[in-house]
């Protein structure tokens, strides 16, 4: 479609043409009573702990959209690079896209330079990106990884603030999880103890917060590699769905049966030899 009033090709990136239209539409929809549909938030509990051999990250698996559970088995621990994983809280699409972009940029970097990226580099890229958009990208992230300088755990807020801490919890259930972490965290813990601590922290978030629930995922990052345990613990409240709704043969009783044979006569017969070697 050729339009004569387009004098320049549109710039790539975000397009703000529809913002005023959307604001006007919200006011018009049934006199302001109906709102636009809410984006899917993760309303979550995520936690991370630095232990002696590496970093342990944990998350619940519930994603909510308003008052409805949108996804019962949502994956909140995202892959960034072979030595780094990131838990995301906030708007689900924002965390997904931001971590995807970060992972792509770090892959290009490691292909160019031949090195594994460091955790500080990922954190700086995230901080620049989130600050540039002034918090409109609703992503609160916990980034944990192991690189040549040691085991690191960082938090990145939606406005671009970062913090480097040994244990951490974010999301709507963070207060409950932080209580457990503050009580039982010790520096240089063993791996199994750290896994148990993270599990307990997420569990308390699930119990005390409406936005968190269902299963618990744990991701253990060490120098040797990554162990992504999904699910680490399943919730007791599972629904028993059959998933097969076919009736077995014989459910409906047969009352009468009438067989009509079809009489056919052979009109023409041709034989074609096939070469099967």
């Amino acid at each position, binding site marked *: 479609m050729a339009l004569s009033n387009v004098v320049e090709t549109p710039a790539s990136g975000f*397009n703000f043409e529809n913002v005023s239209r959307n604001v006007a539409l919200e006011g018009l929809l049934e006199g302001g009573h109906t709102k636009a549909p809410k984006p899917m938030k993760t309303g979550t509990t995520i936690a991370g702990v630095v232990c002696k051999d590496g970093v342990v990250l944990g998350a619940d698996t519930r994603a909510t959209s308003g008052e409805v559970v949108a996804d019962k088995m949502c994956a909140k621990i995202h892959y960034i690079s072979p030595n780094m994983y990131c838990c995301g809280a906030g708007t689900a699409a924002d965390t997904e896209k931001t971590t995807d972009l970060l992972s792509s940029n770090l892959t290009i970097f490691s292909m160019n330079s031949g090195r594994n990226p460091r955790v500080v580099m990922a954190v700086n890229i995230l901080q620049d990106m989130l600050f540039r958009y002034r918090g409109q990208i609703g992503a609160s992230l916990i980034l944990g990884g192991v690189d040549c300088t040691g085991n690191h755990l960082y938090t990145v807020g939606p406005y671009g603030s970062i913090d480097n801490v040994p244990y951490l919890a974010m999301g709507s259930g963070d207060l409950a999880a932080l209580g457990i972490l503050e009580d039982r965290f010790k520096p240089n813990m063993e791996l199994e103890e750290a896994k148990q601590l993270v599990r307990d922290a997420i569990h308390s978030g699930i119990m005390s917060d409406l936005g968190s629930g269902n299963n618990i995922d744990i991701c253990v990052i060490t120098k040797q590699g990554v162990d992504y345990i999904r699910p680490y613990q399943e919730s007791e409240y599972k629904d028993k769905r059959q998933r097969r709704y076919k009736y077995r043969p014989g459910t409906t009783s047969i009352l009468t049966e009438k067989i009509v044979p079809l009489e056919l006569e052979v009109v023409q017969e041709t034989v074609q030899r096939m070469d099967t070697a």
Partner: protein
Amino acid sequence: MNTRGLRSQLKDSVPVTGMGPQVGAYGVQDTLRSGFSSVKNELLPSHALELSEKNFQLNQDKINFSNLRNIQGLHAPLKLQMEYRAARQIQRLPFLQSSHLALDTLKGNDESISFEGILNDPAQSEMMGEPHVMVEYKLGMM
């Protein structure tokens, strides 16, 4: 959106091209090309990020060049800007898609992915401008 907050920033704001009324020849509103004017639409950007995103690349370049000038002297940014200007001219006619490969390599955009590379790809834009109009606009004849 809190319009009062933005109004207080207007005094010190940097003048932005494309935000004001679209003036045509003779200095009046060009109704034929840009439609009817509305003061509200032109005074305030509708989204909090619209202004800052419009100017983001320009401001980044300004910061980088001024840092470079302070560290390495005047010649470094001058030479870089000359190279940018030369690379920017390597493109096809305005209505065709140019890859901007040299410019991207100079700026370092070939090694990173941001929302500019994913959203609103100009190669897949749904609207095609009329070629004569676009060339005239580019040459400043319009």
